[in-house]
């Protein structure tokens, strides 16, 4: 399994499996019967359906009681208080779908003010990892070698 025999073929098959997994997951995510995407496709039958948008970004604040969020979908309209909210904030919105105007009526909003810190720490870790990589890994005769 880990030998050099058919190495190229084994890598290619594994990459094909990963591509297939990506395709299967995309289909799974898009064809789920719940969620805003499904509600848009069939609004009447989703009237009052529960909606959950974890860690979505605020893209526009229309007025004191209406804003839009984006994640895997763009500009989902949300009815709910915009107090303390700014564009680009990350929020979790819990609510239900209203078929009349395709709006999500928020029953709960969770703000995530520490999200920029979390992203910053992750970027810093990636940067440190990139700097450290040559210290721990090298390349010789077409293979990765471990230096320590």
């Amino acid at each position, binding site marked *: 399994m*880990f*030998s*050099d025999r058919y*190495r190229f073929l*084994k*890598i290619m098959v*594994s*990459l094909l*499996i*990963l591509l297939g*997994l*990506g*395709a*299967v*997951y*995309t289909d*799974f*995510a*898009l064809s789920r019967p719940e969620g805003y995407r499904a509600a848009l496709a069939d609004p009447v039958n989703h009237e009052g359906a529960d909606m*959950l948008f*974890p*860690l979505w*970004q605020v*893209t526009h604040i229309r007025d004191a009681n209406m804003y839009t969020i*984006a*994640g*895997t979908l*763009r500009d989902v309209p949300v009815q709910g208080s915009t107090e303390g909210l700014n564009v680009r904030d990350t929020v*979790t919105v*819990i609510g239900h779908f209203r078929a009349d105007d395709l709006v999500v009526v928020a029953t709960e909003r*969770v703000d*995530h003010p*520490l*999200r920029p*810190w*979390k*992203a910053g*720490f*992750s970027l*810093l*870790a*990636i940067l*440190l*990892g990139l700097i*450290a990589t040559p210290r*721990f*890994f090298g390349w010789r005769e077409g*293979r*990765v*070698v*471990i*230096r*320590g």
Partner: protein
Amino acid sequence: MADLLTHGAAAVLVKAGTGWRYPAVFVAGTFAPDLASRVPAIGFGLIHVHWVSLPSWLTHGWQPLHQPFGLLVLAYVISMFFRVHDRVGVFLNLIGGMALHMFLDVLQDHHGVGYLLGFPFWEGHWELGAVGSEATVWVAVPLCILAAWVASKKQATCGASLEDC
């Protein structure tokens, strides 16, 4: 996901407590789920949301690289780029790092949206929900300082040796 500083620091500490063979590979394994899945998904997601509409597979298709089965395959692919006599050790350490990553992630609470741990064989999702999704921000820096100190001690003891010490 917890932040990557916390993931990396936790990997160093766990590795220090369980032997010091292939520590960099173990840490790389901890980084791999987010690097392979979240980074491209967030990057393409930002393009999709703010600039131009992208095909769904570009924003969704990376998700299996943050799930156990996809990570297993990814670890195998990565290990095949190493020298033959390192491959099993690399594979196992990558898997170990990835498992630690998933363990820290499932501790979090995303208000009912858990992780698809069995995809594509089981489509249910699960998470422990014990801590908030940004809870690690407060421990990241102290944990990093501790991990750096432990790593320097270990490296001083073990040098470039790949043997347990």
